[in-house]
């Protein structure tokens, strides 16, 4: 890890207004959703739950909030995918040095 070139107070000064603006943007978006017709149907959309979970991650501590938000919005990975996809005879013929 390379040390950030700036101190925390410097970073905070430079980003305070931007962060405030982004929080306002999210707040206004949620208000707009609630104001609109059929707001209930959105609340039951699994993506809405993701947004709520994303906001919870922002309130947590640590250095990895961005990665955690990314993971929240990611499809699940199955470590056995290769067996399911590539063992049906369609796998290309690889050189003998390659373990199959």
């Amino acid at each position, binding site marked *: 890890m390379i040390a950030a070139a700036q101190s925390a107070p410097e970073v905070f000064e430079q980003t305070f207004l931007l962060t405030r603006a982004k929080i306002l943007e999210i707040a206004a978006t949620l208000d707009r959703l609630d104001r609109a017709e059929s707001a209930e149907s959105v609340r039951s959309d699994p993506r809405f739950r993701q947004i709520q979970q994303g906001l919870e991650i922002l309130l947590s501590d640590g250095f990895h909030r961005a990665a955690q938000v990314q*993971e929240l919005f990611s499809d699940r990975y199955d470590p056995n995918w290769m067996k399911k996809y*590539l063992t049906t005879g369609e796998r290309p013929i690889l050189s003998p040095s390659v373990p199959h």
Partner: protein
Amino acid sequence: MYYIEPHIHMVSRVTDDYERIARMGCVAVSEPAFWAGFDRGSVDGFRDYFRQLTEFEPKRAGWSGIQHYTWLCINAKEAENVELSREVIKMIPEFINNKGVLGVGEIGLNKNTKNESIIFQEHVQLAMELDELILIHTPHLQDKLKGTRMIIDMLMSDRRVQPERVLIDHVEEHTVGLAKEEGFWCAMTLYPITKCTPSRAADIIEAYGDDRIMVNSAGDWGPSNPIAVPDFIQELRRRGHPESKIKKIVYDNPLEFFRQCKRFEFTPPDTLADNSEIAEPQKA
């Protein structure tokens, strides 16, 4: 500051963009083969595209004094058509030794399907046979994490693959560690909405270091900014990072990766002005 744009689809951009990036300090671009905005109907469509990438684009880049490099493949989106993909892969050797070709790319996954995985492995097979570098596209949004893991699984299951000869592109906070841990090169794409912003890319550099990593604009058909790399340079400067470190990411690193290609020839911008000096050794 001079910089290299290691991933941009100039066929989708106008000549003015070459001129603009040249004025911002860009001295070379690398253009991976990709989707044309529509699925091509035949292998001849790709043959014409490869001619455009290896003949016309270097010329057009040259009008603005930019050196043009390219990569060849059938992209993951069209790889769903296995039959057509195999015809294209068979044709790649016709073009691979052309001047400016850096290797096989950008291959990868799009929707993480079985067909995409099969064609990905066949491209890797070709690259291994021809001893070529590989440039990899990782999927967008919710498919990215799963797709990046699948790609790394396929690469790691082939013992011939040397990670330092492979670049995994479009990494973000949740995938950069996966690529770097296994020794691959990686790149961050600066897109207005769907990928990294200059400030998040700078954060990733601060968290993961400046080795084996580069940044690009991946300018293409969608909303993208061909001068995103200068925005990143500006962000690092604003944070007080030294010029030498910035240059490493936007200039030295792409060169270090590309130099592994046996055909790679590059004229540094500082020597461009004095043509007599460059010409002399060739005459001798």
